[in-house]
């Protein structure tokens, strides 16, 4: 009887295209749109490279010095980060207006025109400031003790680097990945739609199918276990398809695939458990229960950065306990820790919390629906 219910539950789920749409097609479509719009956002918005500046030569000319100075700013692989190009004023201003350069620098007094106030232009300006301040300092030393000047001249533009840059992780630091992690969380929580129907349909007082089932010889526990196993299997496969798609799309989810797969499995468990508890609410129609499931799933996912990046971090600052219990936040946190941490401590804590929450929700639901007798429905 277990396999009979198991098989028919799978058939019902595959035929019920609505749930499959929201758990498979919608997340895939959303991920595609997000990737097309934001896949390259960190590269464009935050990385300092290929910064083009126009240099306008003037009478008191520092252009050679400035060109050398800008060209000496190198990246990790010794590539030039700033590309200065000497232009006449008209050409330079046109390039600025067409966004071909981020700044126009006049070599005479080193003043700068820009259309943007961001970290790139601030870095370019900082280099100019350093140049002017060093010139001032030279003059000062020359005034105080001209003999010292020749002594220190060599060290001034030397390669002394006082710091060692250290990355804290080998994983991706792209915070826009949070959107994709949240899509996984949303998709897992949308599994609640399936289990909601199942729990609803074993209650004789709210569903016609429930009435039929309550008079059959098969016990409720058997039905629930078979259907829960079937749903878990279907949704887990759905999540694996989404994972494969995102990987093909180019979303960086790290390389710890067994743990990622475990996260999705536990994510499906918590999604289904949420549906079970919502479905067991008495005296509410299926429409109302779907409304509750959609609302709860969406609110929890939005709080885990689905729509506004940084919301989860804001909650972490103001009231971290919410992130410790919000299943969507826990799922995204699993992805985050797998991506950037080199140990599994926090990941394990997140997974254990999700499992405990799933067991608790199912246990409460069993307490609500077990041994219900319907004298008249």
């Amino acid at each position: 009887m277990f396999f009979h219910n198991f098989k028919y539950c799978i058939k019902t789920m595959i035929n019920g295209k609505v749930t499959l749409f929201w758990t498979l097609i919608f997340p895939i479509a959303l991920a595609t749109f997000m990737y097309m719009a934001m896949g390259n956002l960190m590269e464009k918005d935050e990385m300092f490279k290929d910064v083009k500046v126009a240099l306008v030569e003037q009478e008191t000319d520092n252009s050679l010095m400035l060109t050398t100075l800008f060209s000496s700013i190198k990246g990790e692989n010794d590539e030039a980060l700033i590309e200065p190009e000497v232009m006449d004023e008209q050409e330079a201003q046109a390039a600025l207006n067409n966004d071909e350069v981020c700044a126009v620098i006049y070599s005479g007094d080193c003043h700068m025109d820009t259309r943007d106030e961001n970290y790139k232009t601030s870095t370019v300006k900082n280099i100019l400031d350093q140049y002017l301040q060093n010139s001032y300092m030279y003059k000062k030393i020359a005034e105080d003790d001209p003999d010292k000047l020749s002594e220190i001249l060599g060290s001034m533009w030397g390669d002394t680097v006082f710091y060692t840059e250290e990355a804290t992780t080998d994983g991706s630091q792209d915070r826009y990945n949070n959107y994709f992690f949240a899509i996984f969380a949303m998709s897992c929580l949308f599994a609640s739609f399936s289990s909601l129907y199942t729990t609803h349909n074993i209650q004789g007082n709210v569903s016609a199918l429930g009435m039929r089932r309550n008079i059959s010889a098969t016990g409720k526990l058997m039905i629930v276990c078979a259907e829960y196993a079937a749903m878990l299997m279907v949704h887990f496969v759905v999540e694996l398809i989404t994972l494969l798609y995102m990987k093909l799309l180019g979303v960086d989810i790290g390389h710890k695939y067994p743990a990622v797969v475990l996260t999705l499995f536990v994510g499906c468990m918590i999604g289904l458990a949420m549906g079970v508890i919502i479905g067991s609410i008495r005296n509410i129609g299926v429409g109302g229960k779907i409304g509750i499931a959609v609302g709860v799933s969406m609110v929890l996912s939005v709080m885990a950065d689905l729509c506004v990046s940084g919301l989860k971090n804001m909650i972490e600052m103001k009231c971290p306990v919410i992130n410790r219990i919000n299943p969507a936040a826990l799922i995204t946190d699993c992805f985050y820790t797998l991506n950037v941490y080199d140990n599994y401590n926090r990941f394990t804590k997140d997974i254990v919390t999700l499992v405990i929450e799933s067991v608790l929700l199912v246990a409460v639901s069993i307490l609500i629906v077990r041994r219900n007798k319907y004298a008249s429905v």
Partner: protein
Amino acid sequence: MQVFKSYFKILRRYVGQVLMWLGIFIGMMMIILNVSSEEKTEYTDKQCLFACVDHDGSDISKELTAYLSEHHERVAGIDEDKESVQDALYNRNIHCYLVIPEGFGEAVKAGNADGMLKLMTIPGTDTASLFEGDMNGFMQKLSTLMAAGYDEGEAADIIGDSLKEHAEVKLKGNKSYFSKQERLYSYIPWILLMQLANVITPILMIYNKKELRNRIECSSYKYVNINKELLLAVIITGLGVCVPYVMMDGIMLRDNLLTVQSGLYMANMLVYMLVAVNIAFLFSKVAANDQVVSMLSNIVGLGMAFLSGVFVPMQYLGAGVIRVAHFLPAYWYVIACENIYKNGSGKFGVTLQAMGVQVLFAVAIFMITLVVGKNKKSIQN
């Protein structure tokens, strides 16, 4: 006007949907408009967020931290352990974490402090470049002056004096800045489509039901009148849905309502409303039930919003995405909005062209809907 009246009787059922989407939009706008900064006309240097732990405590390390705190924003309360720093960097709570090791001051005096400072950051980012350049520049100046025989205090004073020397910057417009009004109107394509598709489509689907349509068609009521009344009702619905956004413009952004720019924004919104109404009309011909309408509206609405510069500003979209976006009406809506913001009634041709393209989209979608409707009807018959 029986059909017209019956339309609005059915519409009452969907008022909740309109209000729900309106509530979502107001919530989103409150977040977005609150985080929007005011437009600046004068350039100010950007500051990095950094945390610092000083194990040295020497005069040199104190001078360094004082300089950095003056020119950047120091964030307190972040522990030195790797995971805390990692979390803070990932969430951009800080851009850099500086560790000054013990003995740094002495090493600087001895001239062998190369690479001693430990800087945890996201390598290659513009914030890392700015902070590293500024910090290293300060240390280079300090060590040079000390090599010239000045002590730490004198060197810091000279550096302080040298800060008066800086490059003048002229900010010629601010291309990354968009006004709150522009932000408000640029989200309209998404919300308008979601509202109209989820309200108008289910109602039109009721009139498309075979039995009901046959009953109406065999009555004495003229077919032209039915369509005219439905068209009028749909446009009134569209206008009604637009009203709260104009009110939001008036309430949230008080000073702007009676300006030419506002008029142009509203005209652009009304033109897009025609597109959204036609998309809703098309959905009513292809969707089998309310659930399919919800699926279609979400896919089309979110898809257009992401690809057309509604959710992510156009300057960040790739060239390929922009090329695809040319075939989406929301792209032309956003083009019009940007031009209205930047040029007001100037370069009116650009705004007019973008609105014209939207009208063409509305007409094209209408034509497609007629063809789809005709085919569907012939199949049903």
